[in-house]
């Protein structure tokens, strides 16, 4: 049926379960909650960050490994503590260790590099492999006993012996003290030498080699903080034009800036805004129109924004309105009041493109996530749950009913679990493999072509 057909890639296929990572315990430790998910450029590595400041990197197994059915499973490659909790004594503020974002750098040699950030500090990590060990000392023998320094008759040079593969993560640069407010985005520029970082009011441009200074390129802080009406919610560099970046605001608008025009990008070159529909105006209009994520398509022609109830696709050449709008969970419109009371209305859902830009994915509540096929306009709701996590099990589309009569297999709006939210998802850059973070669990699904 239409609802059952796969979304993404154009071929008819179904999504099926591949793996789930993380403890099954009902009791979830706060530190284990996943706060960001990101594939690298090849898709062979998948990184997650959590509220405990850890980064876990999964590596895809080479195909054709002895177990034929485990087609390209992701296994833990490296785990390291990226950020520690800190205390700012000058401002009497605690700085959480939670990883807000991870961004991979294009690979430039055998090692892999990524940027990770918490609220204040960005770090550049190098992840490299080591499979040899040096043996032989001059001043000690094989058992570690010291030799008589006066009886050294010859010099020995250490010899390298093979050992089990070891993956090391080492911090290469620390970019600190440049953000007064909380960092919400980092984005690597296509010139491969700079990246931007954005907080609530400012965007800075860094050189990857230089840690002691950055350039402020956007500053929307008003002279008088009482006049503050909007904040920066997300920012991203264009995938191939190194001078272009966008940032979104809490007012539901997006500004595109050209760094060629001037050093300080206070004046945007494009301003994307959809005129408000006066009929649907309410107390919550402004809150739900706040953009929680913005992502350029791989082609660089489009960008996608996520607000509380919808995902919009914008053509960079048309500022007046989005070219496509997809409703993520329109049935929540009548529930906004209670969602405001339990703070869910401020949840920051992210969104992502598939490798060929013809499908998009974003999260919802009750561990549901949504996919939209841009060509066929078909959409699907899937669930990341332990119940369906049998190997190769096909994911059944889920449906939420709003009316009085509930059909079989449908779930009522009133029984949705708002504590189970899917905020972070990632799509493999080339294949139909997706990673979905559901609280402390990471689900990996992949396609099964019919």
């Amino acid at each position, binding site marked *: 049926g239409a609802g059952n057909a796969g979304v993404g890639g154009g071929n008819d296929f179904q999504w099926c379960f591949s793996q789930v990572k993380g403890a099954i315990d009902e009791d979830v430790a706060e530190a284990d909650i996943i706060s960001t998910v990101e594939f690298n450029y090849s898709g062979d590595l998948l990184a997650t960050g959590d509220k405990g400041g850890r980064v876990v990197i999964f590596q895809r197994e080479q195909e054709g490994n002895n177990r034929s059915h485990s087609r390209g499973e992701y296994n833990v490659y490296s785990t390291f503590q990226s950020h520690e909790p800190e205390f700012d004594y000058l401002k009497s503020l605690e700085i959480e260790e939670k990883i807000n974002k991870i961004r991979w750098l294009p690979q430039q040699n055998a090692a892999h590099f990524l940027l990770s950030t918490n609220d204040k500090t960005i770090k550049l990590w190098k992840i490299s492999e080591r499979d040899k060990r040096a043996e032989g000392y001059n001043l000690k023998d094989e058992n570690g006993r010291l030799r008589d320094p*006066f009886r050294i008759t010859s010099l020995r040079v250490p010899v390298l012996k093979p050992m089990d593969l070891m993956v090391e993560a080492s911090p290469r640069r620390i970019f600190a003290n440049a953000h007064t407010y909380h960092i919400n985005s980092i984005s690597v520029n296509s010139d491969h030498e700079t990246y931007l970082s954005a907080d609530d009011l400012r965007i800075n441009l860094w050189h990857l080699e230089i840690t002691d200074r950055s350039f402020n390129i956007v500053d929307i802080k008003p002279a008088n903080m009482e006049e503050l009406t909007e904040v920066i919610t997300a920012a991203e560099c264009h995938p191939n034009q190194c001078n272009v970046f966008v940032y979104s605001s809490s007012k539901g608008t997006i500004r595109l800036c050209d760094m*060629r025009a001037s050093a300080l990008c206070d004046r945007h070159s494009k301003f994307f805004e959809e005129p408000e529909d006066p009929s649907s105006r309410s107390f919550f209009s402004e809150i739900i129109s706040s953009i929680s994520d913005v992502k350029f398509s791989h082609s660089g022609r489009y960008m996608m924004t996520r607000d509380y109830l919808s995902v919009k696709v914008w053509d960079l050449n048309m500022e007046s309105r989005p070219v496509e709008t997809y409703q993520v969970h329109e049935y929540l419109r009548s529930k906004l009041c209670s969602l405001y009371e339990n703070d869910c209305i401020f949840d920051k859902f992210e969104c992502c493109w598939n490798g060929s830009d013809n499908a998009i994915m974003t999260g919802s509540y009750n561990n549901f996530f949504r996919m939209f096929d841009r060509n066929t306009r078909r959409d699907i709701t899937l669930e990341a749950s332990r119940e369906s996590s049998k190997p190769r099990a096909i994911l059944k589309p889920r449906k939420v009913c709003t009316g009085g009569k509930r059909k079989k297999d449908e779930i009522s709006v009133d029984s949705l679990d708002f504590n189970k939210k899917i905020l972070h998802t990632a799509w493999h850059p080339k294949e139909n493999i997706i990673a979905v973070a559901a609280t402390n669990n990471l689900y990996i699904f992949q396609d099964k072509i019919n």
Partner: protein
Amino acid sequence: MSKMAGADGDDSLYPIAVLIDELRNEDVQLRLNSIKKLSTIALALGVERTRTELLPFLTDTIYDEDEVLLALAEQLGSFTVQCVFFFFVNLEYLDKAVESLRKISHEHSPEDLEAHFEPLVKRLASGDWFTSRTSACGLFSVCYPRVSKSTKSEIRQHFRTLCSDDTPMVRRAAASKLGEFAKVLELEYVKSDLIPLFAALASDEQDSVRLLAVEACVSIAQLLPQEDLEKLVMPTLRQATEDKSWRVRYMVADKFSELQKAVGPEITENDLVPSFQNLLKDCEAEVRAAAANKVKEFCENLPADSRETIIMNSILPCVKELVSDTNQHVKSALASVIMGLSTILGKDNTIEHLLPLFLAQLKDECPEVRLNIISNLDCVNEVIGIRQLSQSLLPAIVELAEDAKWRVRLAIIEYMPLLAGQLGMEFFDEKLNSLCMAWLVDHVYAIREAATCNLMKLVERFGASWAQSTIVPKVLGMASDPNYLHRMTTLFCISALSEACGQEITTKQMLPIVLKMSEDQVANVRFNVAKSLQKIGPVLENSALQAEVRPVLEKLATDQDMDVKYFAQEAMTGMYLF
């Protein structure tokens, strides 16, 4: 260490053995120390063992901290050629290693180069990872002049390929080495091969590449005969001057003097003058500031016969506008060079056209602008004499001296000795002396400290008798100030001034005050008395030391305060007063 060597041991091996073992120490610093002594290790091992044992080990020590790798790469310069080539397999820190290679390449015979160097360049140039390709760019110019004709043609081909590489990193590396490669290329190939590459890089889609082509423009223009410049270089330069990206225009402004020299007077007059005007009027402040910085140099380098006309008609109108620019960095960049124009334009033009600008800048709202004008007063002094300015100068100095920001006050203090020299003692005593004394009681320590140092420089300039009549009484008067910080300033001043004031003033006027202060109720003052006594000791006669200083220090050495005791003993030891 005992010199007794074991029966069959050799204790000269011991230090080397330690170095080798520490190549793999957990402690980065120790590893670094060993790496820095690699040539010693290599010498002890001999060429063969270095090649077969040490280098393979080092090659695989690439999993290391950046700084160790950097040191390693630098050390390669001291190795023999075969060793280095062997080493060059997959070193991560290629750029630094390439630097080493560049250094040693001259020591190699052409045969060695042909056999080792050139294949290495080729291998790097076609490497899979772009780091190796970027590094290759640095080696072309080194090996090109010394290889055979056929190899040269291959190297040019490699360079062409890298100039159109997919990754911007590699194109940037190629663009940044374009100039030095041009220098070693035969002129015919510069024209046939390099100019098209230069034009392509200068219109690259990434502005980070384009701006590097501006630098290459300088080197290339220097190489070409004048008649080719118009056709081969100027179109690209014009395009860069009008580039959409401010960073490229900034680069043009920043390199303007070099460009001016490279293209010669004729093109300067026809092309660069209008370009320079545009840069001074650019819509981006960063570009205007960079251009403003070059105003003096550009004017100096104009052809002598038309210099004044060009400045008066084309440059000065732009400069006048910049004086009231909206951006303070632009104004302050201009203020740092504008005074230099007076020597070029001479007395009459300076008084008529420049003086109003100087005066306007002396009243600028931004302190940095005023400071930059004041710090360059010497240029004007030579041409029109400083008196022309003194009426406006004084209010400007007073305002800076009382600025709310202590860094501004600090900056003006530093120019005081210079100003004193130019304005003369009389003017100084009348107008500025009170400022200098007021700084001594500033509430910021850094200002009081600078004020003390300033007094010393003034005394060096105006002499001891001036000091005795104008400064010393005021300084000594502060010794009975109720604020202990001011009392300490007296001590600091005495320490600083004693040498310049000489023995008589120090012994007769300063010493009694210092000794009296040893009774101060604040311990900080007392231990500074001890410190001051040690400072002024060398100026005093031995009799005064023994009769007056010694008893006071002995008493302070039994003070109940620990620090006072310590500094008193320190002073006694320092002056051998035992």
